[in-house]
């Protein structure tokens, strides 16, 4: 039903200049934004690199690489869209939305993060060739035993000037492999070796970011109060406002069941979708659409109009528009 036409007899017209209102609004915003940018600056924290981790946290680097090598890292066991794992598979009852699109971005961490970079480094360090051969010719059980022994010895490692000396253990070629990988990382060549899904333009940085995620990145995030329990993405960035408009979304993560369920992400996403649908349907939902009428806050906006209608005096003036431009004609 078309009922939007307003009756000029009931609602007298007043002069109005839309172009002027638009220009004033644009200039007001531009002035505010330029002053804010000049005086306050904007948030920026240098990105974390694999090179930094390899140099400043070499044991953590080696631990991460060891877990990638024997496919016990979080990403190796993640699930779709990266692999067949179930470690991060979220389910709402029998519903697994994560599996719908399948494995669209396959990642094999042991190959991508360790074996391929080392194979690429072989021309620079020929001693790696027999080491990699020893690894590839061993059984899976043998490989797992080597990595397990290495990870057990790693906490007792001695670190001198960035060089890590791991106590002797039945860990086969693993120390030589991961030491070479750390050298690659320390020299700044690691991310280039990892991000090769599109070998020229390197748009997809999934491998290097997935290598960095976990303890290395969380340590930095904690420094800036960015962890999930601290309202995550919408938290202030340094002393600047973050995306505060995500407050309702971030708030869900602070309360059960979102904060406790392993499917918290999926539940939060679908809750926000439901809220969006309700917001879209406000004009159709009895009760909800009547709230403004019952609260009567609109009488503040149209106070001049109601004064005129209810008391008969002309308090409207002769110029419609926002207060910003009402004194000019």
């Amino acid at each position, binding site marked *: 039903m078309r009922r939007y036409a307003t009756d000029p007899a009931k609602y007298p017209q007043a002069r109005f200049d839309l172009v002027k209102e638009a220009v004033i609004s644009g200039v007001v915003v531009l002035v505010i934004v330029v002053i804010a940018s000049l005086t306050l600056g904007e948030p920026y924290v240098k990105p974390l690199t694999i090179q930094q981790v390899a140099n400043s946290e070499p044991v953590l680097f080696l631990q991460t690489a060891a877990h990638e090598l024997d496919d016990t890292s979080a990403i190796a066991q993640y699930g779709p869209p990266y692999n067949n794992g179930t470690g991060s598979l979220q389910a709402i009852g029998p519903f697994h939305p994560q599996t719908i699109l399948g494995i669209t971005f396959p990642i094999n961490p042991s190959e991508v993060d360790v074996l391929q970079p080392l194979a690429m480094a072989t021309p620079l360090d020929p001693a790696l060739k027999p080491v990699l051969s020893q690894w590839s010719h061993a059984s899976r059980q043998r490989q797992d035993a080597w990595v397990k022994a290495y990870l057990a010895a790693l906490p007792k490692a001695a670190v001198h000037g960035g060089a890590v000396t791991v106590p002797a253990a039945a860990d086969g070629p693993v120390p030589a492999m991961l030491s070479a990988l750390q050298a690659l990382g320390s020299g700044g060549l690691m991310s280039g070796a990892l991000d090769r899904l599109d070998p020229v333009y390197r748009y*997809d940085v999934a491998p290097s970011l997935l290598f960095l995620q976990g303890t290395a990145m969380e340590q930095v995030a904690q420094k800036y109060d960015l962890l999930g329990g601290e309202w995550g993405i919408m938290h202030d960035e340094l002393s600047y406002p973050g995306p505060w408009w995500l407050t309702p979304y971030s708030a869900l993560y602070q309360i059960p069941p979102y904060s406790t369920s392993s499917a*918290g992400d999926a539940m939060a996403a679908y809750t926000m979708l439901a809220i969006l649908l309700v917001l879209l349907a406000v004009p159709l939902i009895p009760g909800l659409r009547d709230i403004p009428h019952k609260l009567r806050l609109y009488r503040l906006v149209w106070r001049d109009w109601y004064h005129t209608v209810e008391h008969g005096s002309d308090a409207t003036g002769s110029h419609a528009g926002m207060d910003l431009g009402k004194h000019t004609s």
Partner: protein
Amino acid sequence: MSRHEAGAGNWTEAIRRRAEAFTWDTLLPTEQPVYVRSVVYSFGALTLGALVVVVASGIILAANGPFWWQTPGAGVFMRGIHYWGVQAFFFFMILHLTAQFFMGSWRLGRGGTWVLGVLSFALSVVTAFTGYLSRGDFFSEWNQVQAKDAFNGAGIGGWFNVLNNGQIYGLHIAVLPAILIAFVSLHLLLVRRHGVVPPYPADNEQVERGSSR
């Protein structure tokens, strides 16, 4: 003469008829009802002003590239304009949305305007999010690895790959703004076409059927 030959019901004719309804006086009116007189009416215009600033600064940033906006000097200043423009955009948009809710602005056949406004808000959230991922600093990295779980868990991570800077940047500077600008344009056209929603009936007025819906 067939119905098709007469043009009645022809969708191209319908588009022309609808377009003809927008005269210059509809688009840029010289008069408005007297009740259009409050600072509240500035929120929508200020939101639009902020969007213009965001798009203009975004075009300059895109023209110069990621290295430029991470290098101290003009690039960082322009990134600041873009950042504060987005803050202003959401500030005024949420004021606008809240005010329109309490004014019941979907009444009298204006439901489509409300829906387009809410869709514009939702799309703005996604567009701004892709911007946060495109800045190229630690916040971007952190939000990328955190957000992947959210998008994967929701079932769209298999397409919306937040770890692919090419896809996210393309969405941020082209696809999402194009859709957003289309939504906002339609929203504005509907506002102009239908006029500003009248006030709820006064206490001493007889309530017309449906006037509060």
